[in-house]
C-alpha cells in the first residue's frame, strides 16, 4: 500500500484538535525514581516521513478479545455470567455476518470467564466459538485437540490464555490467507462491542460526575474512543465489503457519541527503569465524559449488542 503526503494530514489534524480540547482534569504527574533514566525524545524524523510515503503494508490493530477481557479484569471489575451471550443462541447464527460477529462475542466471553477462573464456562464458550468458526469455514482454529488441551489444563490459567490467544490468531490469519480480512475486522468489532457491553453493565447506569472520575472502568469505557478511530480506518480500508458496511451503519451512532468525549494527552516522556528494562511512557491525560454522554453511550451499546446477538 502506498501513501501520499496528504495521508498524514488527518492524523496531524486530529492530534492538533485533541490538544485544543478543554475538559475537567484526571491528571497524573510525571514522577521519577532513582533507577529511572529519562530517554530523549526525538522530534519528527524527516527520513521517516519520507519512508511513510512509500509504506508497503499498513496495519490498523483493534483490541483483541483477550485484550478487552484483560482491561475488564485490570480495572477491578467483578465477574457476572449473566452478561454473556447465552449459549443456546448459537443455532440462530447462520449468516457470515452473524457468525463473524458472534465469533468475536463468544471469544470475548470465554476470555472474560477464563480470567476469572470460570473453567467450565470457558470450555462451554470455546465450543460456542468453535461452532461459529466452523460455520465461517475455519476448520482448524479450534479443533478437538484445542478443547482437550483446555480440559487438561483447567487449573493452569497461563496455558488457557495461551490457547485462547492461539485460537484468535488462527482465525485472524485464516481470514488474511483467504483475502477475507474484512471478516476478521467484523470478528474484532463483535468482540469489542461485547467488552463494552460487559463493562457498561458492571458500573452504575446513572453515575455522577464524581463516580465517573473515580471509577477506572468508566475511564476504560471512554478510552475506547481510541479504538473507534481505528475502526474508522478499517472502514475506509474495506469499504467495498457489504457485511462490514452494514455493521458500520450501526457503529456510526456510537462514533458520534464518542466524538463528544474528549481525551487530551500531553507529550510522552519515556523513562526507562534500568533494573527491569521496562520503559514507562510518562504523560498526563485529561479525559472528559459527562454523565449525560455516558448515558447515551450505554444506551447505544445496549442497542448495538442486542442487534448483534439477535
Amino acid at each position, binding site marked *: 500500500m502506498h501513501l501520499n503526503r496528504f495521508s*498524514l494530514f488527518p*492524523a*496531524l489534524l486530529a*492530534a492538533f484538535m485533541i490538544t485544543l480540547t478543554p475538559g475537567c482534569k484526571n491528571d*497524573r504527574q510525571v514522577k521519577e525514581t532513582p533507577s529511572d533514566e529519562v*530517554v530523549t*525524545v*526525538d*522530534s*519528527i*524524523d524527516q527520513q*521517516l*516521513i519520507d*519512508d*511513510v510515503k*512509500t*509504506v*508497503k*503494508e*499498513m*496495519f*490498523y*490493530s483493534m*483490541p*483483541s*478479545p*483477550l*485484550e478487552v477481557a*484483560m482491561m475488564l479484569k*485490570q480495572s477491578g471489575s467483578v465477574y457476572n455470567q449473566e452478561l454473556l451471550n447465552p449459549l443456546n443462541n448459537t443455532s440462530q447464527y447462520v449468516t457470515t455476518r452473524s457468525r463473524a460477529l458472534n465469533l468475536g462475542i463468544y471469544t470475548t466471553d470465554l476470555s472474560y470467564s477464563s*480470567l476469572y477462573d470460570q473453567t467450565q464456562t470457558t470450555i462451554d464458550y470455546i465450543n460456542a466459538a468453535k461452532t461459529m468458526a466452523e460455520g465461517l469455514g475455519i476448520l482448524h482454529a479450534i479443533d478437538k485437540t484445542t478443547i482437550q488441551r483446555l480440559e487438561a489444563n483447567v487449573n493452569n490459567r497461563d496455558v488457557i490464555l*495461551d490457547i*485462547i*490467544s*492461539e*485460537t*484468535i*490468531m488462527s482465525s485472524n*490469519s485464516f481470514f*488474511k*490467507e483467504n483475502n477475507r480480512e474484512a471478516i476478521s475486522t467484523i470478528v474484532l468489532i463483535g468482540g469489542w462491542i461485547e467488552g463494552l457491553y460487559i463493562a457498561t453493565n458492571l458500573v452504575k447506569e446513572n453515575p455522577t460526575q464524581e463516580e465517573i472520575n473515580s471509577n477506572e472502568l468508566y475511564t476504560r469505557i471512554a*478510552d475506547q474512543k*481510541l479504538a473507534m*478511530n*481505528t475502526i474508522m*480506518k478499517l472502514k475506509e480500508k474495506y469499504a467495498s465489503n457489504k457485511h462490514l458496511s452494514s455493521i458500520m451503519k450501526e457503529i456510526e451512532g456510537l462514533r458520534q457519541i464518542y466524538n463528544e468525549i474528549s*481525551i487530551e*494527552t*500531553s*507529550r*510522552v516522556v*519515556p523513562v526507562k527503569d534500568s533494573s*527491569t528494562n*521496562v*520503559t514507562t*511512557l*510518562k*504523560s*498526563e*491525560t485529561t479525559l472528559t465524559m459527562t454523565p449525560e454522554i455516558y448515558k447515551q453511550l450505554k444506551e447505544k451499546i445496549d442497542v448495538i449488542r442486542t442487534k448483534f446477538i439477535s
Partner: protein
Amino acid sequence: MSKLSSTLVILTLLMTIPLFGNSQCKHFAKQVCKKELAPYIHNGNFNAAILTEGETAEMYKSFYSNQNYRLYICESSAMPRIRFQVLDINRNVIYDNKNNGYKMKWDFVPESSQQLIISLKVEDGENDSDGEPLSGCVAIMIGITEAAKESP
C-alpha cells in the same frame, strides 16, 4: 491448447505464491515469534507480511494506561536487520531500536491510553547470490500481561 494450459498453470502459480507466503508467515509467527513474547501473552492479533529489503510497514494501535506491553518485531532468518521506531500520534519518536543496539523487543507501560504508531523498515542488506533483493516474513507481535512483570 497446450499454450493455454501453460498460461493457466503459470497464472495459478502466480496467484498462489502470495498465499504460500501468508501461510508460511502464519506458521513462522506461531512457531517462532510467539515464544519470544513469554512471559507475556500474545494478544492474538496477526500482523505479518512478506517484506523485501528497503520496504516499510506501519501499525496503528491503541495502548491502554497501566497495561504492561511487550512489542516484538520478528523476522525470518537471513533477512537484513530491521529498524523500528515507536511514534506518538504526532510522529514524535518515543523509541528507536537503532539507539538500543537494534534490539527487537521493547517492554513498556503507558501512563495514559493513547494511539501509537509502530514503524519499521527492512534495511538494505546484501542481495542473495542471484542479485535479487532478500525478502521474508516480518511479524509485529504484541504481548500483554495480567499484572506487572519484570523483563527476564
